[in-house]
């Protein structure tokens, strides 16, 4: 039996999340103590060396982002933002961290802030996450009382203030530049990129923006070193990943495993296999902005590169499993409806494209002569043009599920509508 390896979820379920004492007793804030004794350069070099990659879905090198924000200027305003606007369908890993171990996130953020020279930070939380908000609010209060936040943290002379911002239900606000607009109090529209946040982020200042899970890895990397971290997972995707498995499995839930675990292991060992002993149909990896994996792809290793090699994506770590009796066309239609609903409307290809895709598929599905091959070929053509012309990642997303269905699962699509 495979064993979980918990780093981000180290304390989850083991300590009372509302007790800072229990967190401290579990070596809490030791990493911060250690970090504050070293030079900022040492911190971001350590993160860089660890090979940690963004756990929000894009998988960009965290250390590289951190370094960029650290060196761009000294003596200027900088910010750290935690992206806790967890909105990708099928994803609930950040919620678990915030609900069960909020101090790990605070510790990670404070280390990140110290490493780039930021004195103000924001946690932008999905507004529906009431419990996360409550627990983090309490934890921030406790951290201030214990001198882990505020002025002259642990006598180091370093100051850092941390605040919570609540999202208001827009999927797009999970996109980093849109999120920054929202923190600024503006409507959530994506910005033109570049400049990237590390150059011009919040209020035009260099900003480090990271996902909850990414930041939750910081303390252990600082405590145990990059080499230790690299010993876990695969060469190009070191460390662990929290997978949130849902759908037609026996044991849905969140599980933290080293990168490199296969999809088959995740579904059949970790999650206990398909419910009611039905045959496997497909697994949607990474949520709506993700890809459908076919049965013959089950042995792929769950890591950024290995998945990419076979045209799949890791994304946020969501795994939505469908048994073979599910109507995948309807699933795809739901995904297109989701994008249509969440498109902000700023750029033409996404605003109109998401609706065109949805309406095309909806109409075709009603047609007695529905020809998935032809229909999906046209949808992929449109979605590819959308992806190439859209302003932000949302418009670049529909092509992922569409193309993976078209390329990998034509048989299932044909069967679904039969």
């Amino acid at each position, binding site marked *: 039996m495979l064993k979980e390896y918990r780093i981000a979820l180290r304390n989850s379920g083991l300590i009372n999340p509302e007790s800072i004492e229990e967190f401290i007793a579990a070596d809490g804030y030791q990493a911060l103590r250690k970090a504050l004794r070293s030079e900022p350069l040492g911190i971001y070099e350590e993160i860089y060396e660890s090979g940690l990659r963004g756990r929000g879905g894009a998988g960009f090198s965290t250390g590289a982002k951190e370094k960029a924000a650290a060196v761009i200027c000294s003596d200027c305003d900088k910010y750290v933002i935690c992206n806790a606007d967890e909105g990708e369908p099928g994803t609930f890993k950040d919620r678990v961290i915030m609900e069960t171990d909020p101090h790990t996130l605070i510790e990670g953020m404070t280390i990140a802030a110290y490493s780039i020279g930021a004195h103000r930070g924001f946690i932008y939380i999905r507004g529906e996450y009431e419990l996360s908000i409550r627990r983090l609010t309490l934890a921030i209060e406790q951290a201030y009382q214990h001198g882990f936040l505020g002025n002259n943290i642990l006598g180091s002379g370093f100051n850092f203030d941390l605040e919570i911002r609540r999202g208001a239900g*827009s999927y797009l606000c999970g996109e980093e530049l849109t999120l920054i607009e929202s923190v600024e109090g503006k*409507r959530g529209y994506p910005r*033109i990129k570049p400049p990237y946040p590390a150059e011009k982020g919040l209020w035009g200042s260099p900003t480090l923006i990271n996902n909850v899970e990414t930041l939750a890895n910081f303390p252990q990397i600082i405590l145990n070193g990059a080499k230790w971290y690299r010993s876990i997972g695969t060469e190009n995707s070191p460390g662990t990943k929290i997978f949130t498995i849902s759908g037609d499995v026996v044991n849905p839930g969140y599980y933290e495993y080293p990168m490199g675990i296969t999809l088959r292991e995740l579904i059949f060992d970790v999650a206990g296999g398909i419910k009611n002993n039905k045959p496997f149909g497909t697994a949607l990896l990474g949520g709506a902005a993700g890809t459908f994996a076919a049965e013959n792809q089950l042995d792929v290793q769950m890591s950024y590169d290995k998945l990419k090699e076979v045209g799949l994506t890791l994304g946020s770590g969501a795994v939505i499993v469908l048994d073979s009796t599910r109507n995948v066309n309807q699933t795809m239609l739901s995904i297109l409806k989701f994008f*249509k*609903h*969440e*498109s*902000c*409307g*700023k*750029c*033409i*290809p996404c*605003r*109109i*494209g*998401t*609706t*065109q895709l949805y*309406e095309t598929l909806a109409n075709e599905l009603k047609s007695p002569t529905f020809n998935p091959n032809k229909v999906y070929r046209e949808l992929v053509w449109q979605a590819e*043009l959308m992806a*190439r*012309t*859209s*302003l932000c990642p949302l418009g670049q997303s529909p092509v992922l599920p569409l193309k993976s269905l078209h390329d990998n699962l034509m048989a299932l699509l044909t069967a679904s509508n039969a």
Partner: protein
Amino acid sequence: MGKVSIYIDDREVMAEQGANLLHEARKNGINIPGLCYHPKLTPTGACRLCLVKVEGQRGMVASCTLAVKEGMHVTAFDQELEDTRRFLLDYLISEQNIDYDNTYPDELRELMFRYGLHLPQNRFFKPVKPHAEFKVDSSSPVLTYDPSKCIKCFRCIKACDEVQGKNVLSFYERGLASYIVAGMGVWGESECDGCGECIQLCPTGAIVEKPNRNIINLSKVERRVRTTCPYCGVGCQIELLVQNGRIVRSNGVEGVLPNDGRLCVKGRFGYEFVHSPERLTKPLIRKNDVFVEATWDEALSLIATKFGELIQKYGPDALAGYASAKCTNEDNYIFQKFVRTVFGTNNIDYCTRLCHASTVTAMLRSIGDGAGSNSIQDFETTDCLVVTGNNIIETHPVTATYVKRGAARGMKIIVIDPKWTPLVSYATLWLQPRLGTDVALLNGMVREIIANNWVDHDFIQNRIDGGMQSFLELKNLVDKYTPEHTESITGVSADKIKEAARIYATAKTAMVATGMGMSQQVTGTHNVFSLLNMILITGKIGKERCGIDPPRGQNNVQGATDVGCHPGMYPGYIPVSNDENRRRVAGVWNVPFDSLSAKPGLTTVEIMQAAYDGKIKGLYIMGENPMISDPNLNHTEEALKKLEFLVVQDIFHTETTRFAHVILPASAWAEKNGTFVNSDRRVLRVRKAIECPGEAREDWKIIHELAGRMGKPMPVYADESEIFDELAKVTPIMAGISHARIEEHGIQWPCPTPEHPGTSTLYIDRFNTPSGKARLYPVDHVDQTEHATPEYPFILNSGRILYHYHTGTMSRRNKPLTDFTNAHYVIMHPNDAVKNGIKPNTKVRITSARGSLDTYVRIADEVLEGELFMPWHFTEAQVNRLTRDELDPYSRIAPFKISAVRVEAID
């Protein structure tokens, strides 16, 4: 920066390093399509039509989001890019209502034709959103918004935010269902003030102006005439569209100063008055108290005879002329020349005496020029702006756009005003002194500046007459104005006084905009002296983005003085009392030297007082309406009645024309050629767009003919440019300017030679005083001569509002403006309202020692307790029935801002 080589489709193109790639490509004639980009706005990247490929970058990139880099290789057109653009346009058309009625420019339609998508068979995508219900919002008085035509390009939102600084527009809903809303959702109930910047920048006709919508047909527009706006002194460049001999639209002219396409509600929608059926179209002669239509010959010979008799009987100084801040330089130049050479007197003045006379007086004495020292763009780029007694957002809306843009980039704004103005919302600090305590407040700030040693010693040493000695005199005088003492006089807290002094004095660059609140007092000149003292000791003048700028109230109030409509000065601020000057002017005018009077004439209010006293017998008024604009109207009325002969030359019957003996129908601004000078000394072209109605004539031609009939003919001028050429000869500050030089861009005086580029900032090297140095004028606070008393317990302040203009002759004849507001009112503090049992909209009678009026109460804490405010545009409630004609001893300005009154509720 600087030009660098880039390559677009293998063609070498010189482009500005760092500039917007799309903009530079288009400037070079490479017409990359695009709908959301506009050169005035930050790039949006929404329409994606301007996609290009750049060597070294993956995929297609929106060129509007790229900066020019030396040596970059760009593909702007290839099959893939064009196919992609057609795909995107096809998408766009699938959500659009593409009907077109020829009433607005439509950039989408042009692209539709360019890509062949006007033909339905070329379109691939089915229309989306067939069920959406988009309602047209026509609640605004001036525009309609049709969401079905909206491509959601953000241009209107950015026009409102970035260009005008108003932030009224935003999107409602999301994605395909989104549409533009103003304020909380209903345009007519929002804070939209109707400037129409969004209309001008809308690419598809989603937002279109209402006026003339049913008339205008762009294919039938016969002329597009660029000219200068006739309202305030900003001098906005506008383009008038003429169809069937009528003005049907006014747009801002992009890319030229002072306004770079921006307008306010008056500039865009205030042109209707020229076509009013109430225009004067025939000369009128009063016979037995009835005005009877006459021929020009009858009217002019009657005037020539009457004025001639008065000169014979009482001498030249019994005659006087009121020039006009609304008329061109050419009109005013000819008018003052007429008064000086035909009447033979210097009794020539106009309404400037009622607005910035004290400012000009103080500035002439202290620094040497009676005009703004900076350029309009500096209002955006200076680090600190003090706005004192100046409701700049309402009275100079386009100058205010620069201020608001400055605020957005962090400029510190200090508002000094007894009444709340909209600028307070953008300000770092608002000081609200009691009416009439400005000298004390400014002295308090000066003291604080000196106490903290925020003074510029080098500047004092090198650029102020008397150097440290003068400074010490000032220091001694202001010593008693401690923050606490100043607070006790002004009511402004000591902390705010200190903070304001610190912000102003420690800013790297700082400017001051000073308005009527400072000038229209018995102590007007002293107010400006104390302001200048503060500016001078901190060295905040004589450098770029530093100085003092009185935004001028009327389109040509600056120019009229510049060209000599001043009782003491010839064109170009040349004193009449100096023989040398008189000899030079007489030479150019080709008149005997001793025919020009050396005696300075009477000022505006003095002329009226002299008429009352029987010393002025004949008056020629060109385009002024003293029966609304002069102080103490009951007295003015008596004075006008006593005149033996009054000629009023105007475009409408006014409150003044009823006292005239002859009324002459003149031309409106759109009917004449010439020039105006705006607030930043920019000489701007005025061009004829339409014909005068009926028999109305251009002003200067009337005067010119009258001069001949009175036996003192002027030279023949073929056109207005020849008048300007003569004007330039007598006016050294404009000597280098001609109509030909300002066809495209205006020039700021001083411009002494035809090669001179004009002057954007005054006093860089020297002040325009005889010594070349500035002078400090230490002045003490004195109590106002008019106080609140038990009989008259309130102090009434007066001023202007955005939608109307001065005496209302023009503005109140425009439906779009009167639709916004057309009612008079008085603002009272809530506590006073409670104390006096007055409810909102109560009808009240306001009475001063001079007269009374009836109006309605608005209750707002925009004024201090014990103070009131009334706009003075409305003839139904003539504020100047209440004001005094007591004058500032230096500038002869009247105290329009301070009148003791009582308020009684009436049924």
